């Protein structure tokens, strides 16, 4: 039992440590960037516009506490963070929490839709390929998907934008909704949102499907050669049962960790895609925050994204343990065995 507790404890400490490292990096990184929040106030990179006078800059630095020693700034940051306060944006003159909360749903909408689509597509195409291993259907799918997953997401995005958006005019070029539009119904509004999100989601989905497809294809290919598949066939089970209850369930095990790991990359992709499509999510916000060196906003965005990725990893860990009985290792399988043993003793006596 001691070992079990230790393991769990170790996991918690591991997550806490990761979190602390993230916070510290979060604090240090913006300050390591060349430039100054007030110097670059309204300037693009390389075109420094001195908006404020020297005195004014001095005043702002003092006002926002940037003239204090770094250690003091750090402890203040931690204290505020502990209260759940991400700070006050220099540029937007607003609470970072509320800025992020306004933008986050858009990004989450993109990421979650793209993830769901790419998982669904990856599983369907991957298993289709595995059942037809080395036939022409498999070969074609394999080539096409590998090509797509190797092209960077922003390039695919640009191509789509130019072709479907600008060229054919099928999709809007920017934004998440039509500005100043009046909707007659909720449906119309939803349709408008989907219309705007279609290209970014398509871009992200295209970039992500390849990896999942490959994983499912290979994993299912391995599962098909396992002894228990032969057992299932020998039992005369229906094809549906053999394919989905016996084979696919085993093949999808590795997918959970893979999705969690990919989430980081997916968020990175979303940031790029948002900028390509001028989609008002956290990615566009981050870009402008970096340009103007808005320390609190940068820190806030980084933190939210990091927590998101970490939470996904943690969830995958837990989900995997739930789904694969073999990886409830020491913990629950031991408990099961103990329970079984207790039952057995009772049965015997």
């Amino acid at each position, binding site marked *: 039992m001691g070992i079990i507790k230790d393991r769990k404890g170790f996991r918690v400490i591991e997550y806490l440590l990761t979190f602390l490292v993230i916070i510290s990096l979060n604090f240090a990184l913006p300050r390591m960037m060349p430039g100054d929040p007030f110097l670059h106030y309204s300037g693009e990179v390389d075109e420094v516009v001195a908006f404020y006078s020297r005195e004014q800059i001095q005043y702002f630095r003092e006002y926002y506490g940037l003239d204090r020693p770094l250690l003091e700034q750090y402890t203040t940051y931690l204290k505020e963070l502990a209260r759940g306060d991400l700070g006050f944006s220099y540029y937007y003159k607003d609470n970072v929490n509320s800025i992020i909360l306004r933008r986050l749903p858009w990004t989450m909408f993109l990421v979650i839709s793209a993830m769901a689509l790419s998982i669904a597509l990856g599983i369907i195409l991957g298993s289709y390929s595995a059942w037809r291993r080395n036939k022409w259907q498999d070969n074609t799918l394999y080539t096409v998907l590998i090509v797509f997953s190797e092209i960077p997401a922003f390039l695919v995005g640009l191509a789509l934008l130019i072709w479907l958006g600008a060229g054919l005019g099928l999709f809007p070029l920017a934004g998440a909704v039509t500005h100043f539009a009046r909707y007659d119904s909720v449906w119309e509004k939803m349709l408008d949102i989907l219309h705007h999100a279609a290209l970014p989601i398509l871009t992200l989905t295209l970039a992500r499907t390849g990896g999942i497809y490959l994983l499912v294809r290979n994993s299912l290919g391995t599962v098909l050669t396992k*002894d228990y598949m*032969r*057992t299932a*066939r020998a*039992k*005369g*089970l229906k094809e549906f*049962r053999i394919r989905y209850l016996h084979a696919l369930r085993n093949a999808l095990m590795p997918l959970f960790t893979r999705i969690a790991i990919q989430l980081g990359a997916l968020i990175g992709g979303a940031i790029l895609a948002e900028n390509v499509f001028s989609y008002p999510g956290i990615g566009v916000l981050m870009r402008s925050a970096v340009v103007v060196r808005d320390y609190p906003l940068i820190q806030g965005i980084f933190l939210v994204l990091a927590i998101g990725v970490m939470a996904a990893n943690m969830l995958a860990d837990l989900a995997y343990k739930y789904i694969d009985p073999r990886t409830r290792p020491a913990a629950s*399988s031991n408990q099961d065995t103990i329970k079984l043993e207790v039952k057995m003793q009772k*049965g015997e006596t």
Partner: protein
Amino acid sequence: MMDVKNKEDILLNVNELSVQYKTDNTTITALDKISFSIKNRENLGIIGESGSGKTTLAMSLMGLIGSPHKVYGKINVTGKDLMSLAEKDKKKLRWKTIAMVFQNSMDVLNPVMKVGHQIVEPLKETEGLSEREAFLEAERLLKLVGLEKYWKDSFPHQLSGGMRQRVLLAMAMSCSPRLLILDEPTSSLDAVTRKSLFEMVRDLQEKIGFSMLVISHDLSAMKDLTDKMMVLYGGEILERGLTREIIEEPAHIYTRGLINSSVQAFPYKDLWGIPGEAQTEVKGCVFASRCTQALEGCSEKKPYLEQVFTNREVACHRGGIVDLIRARGISKSYKVQNTIIPAVKDVILRVRHGETVALVGRSGSGKSTLAHILAGFLQPDKGDVVFDNQAVKGNWPACKEGGIQLILQDPFSSLSHRFTVEDALLEPLKVNKIGSLEERIARIKAALKDVQLPADDLFLKRHCSSLSGGQRQRIAIARGLVMKPKLLLADEITSMLDVSTQANLLRLLKGLQNSSGFAMVFITHDLHLARKIAERIIVLHHGEITEEGSSSYVTEESCCCHTKELMEAGL
């Protein structure tokens, strides 16, 4: 009328079944025209080394060999022609008519499904059981194989090997099949678990009344579970008969090799595997390349199963293991000062190719006399000896290659002191005018290597008088080996040696026998030694054979007083 009844009783009939595995550019024949049938409630065993096609046979019976691999021939189960059925109808047959206990491996059960669910799955699907009914059925089946009912909620990785085997059995029982295939049922089990599994399978058979096809390389599984047995090698059946009889007296060289490799058959003997590797895709007999009695024609033409005696069929051009020497009604007496002393009385004896027979008896029991008669050095008063289908008159078998060689008890007197090692070894070749000088030298060097002595010139020039007893005895053996004998008569060859030298020499001799395949008559007064090296033991007392049988039978189940006396005296 009888015929019709017989036909109805047949559950499975396999006719000229062939299976070919196709890979990109090769075709491997895994089974080659196998025919057999199983009656209701009959248990048939299939034994063979790994790669002999055992599992392929099981897979083809379940209809599980799909494209691109090819299956030819006919499989008839309960009157249905399996090969002509559509996949959908094959599915109906699987598990309900033929179920299988798969070879126990980590992966044989689905790792993410509860055991109970996997057990009732096929039944649930066909019978449309409710959750509740399936649940009770799983508990019933687990109880049937002696597992507590709560195991149904466990996952495969939580079971021990023995428990997994029981779960596999319960799973196979779920649809009460007519034919149960057991694939290596004992491979991962300890002796105790194995025994209880056998008992359980037999009990289940009493209750449910299925037939069994047991696939194994384990002789004890064959012995305990089957009545009839087939020996499979390279995808072909080499021998077929009643299990007990085959184990007691194998008729094919390969079968004998398998049995000699088995701990269960010979608990006291050293184990000797069959040298060489199995070959497939050959024109002639599949075993020819490893067979020690193969003739030239064997690798040209395929042998077919033919009856050699009652209840036994063998696929061998030579009709199975040939009798190398047969002696009938041998009697011999010596005349000492007007008294006639009978040395050997009416002895009947047979030595088969490649076999080791121990001739055991006290001193003066007529062992050496018999050996000399067999070799043709002594004329018997009555009776005749036939060696390799030719009557032994005079010492011709000793003069030719592939004949009989005699090695004597005392190496100090059997090798002349004045001879060098070279002289001693060259002598038989010189006398019999075999080969040129170079060939002779090459041959004696090979023989010296065989007996693990140095083959350099220095050693060849040494005088026999300068060698130790063990070395001399090895020289004597080498002298026999240069003639490439088919039968070696070893007359108390270790009695003058210390135990360590004796052990080395015996291992050496068995090793040589295993690789070159000569038969051996090992004459000794030590029954325990005989048990260690011989397959068959003949006990001689006052010139008469008092007992004869397989070495485990003679040493364990004997009811002959004299044998028991010898046994106890040796201990």
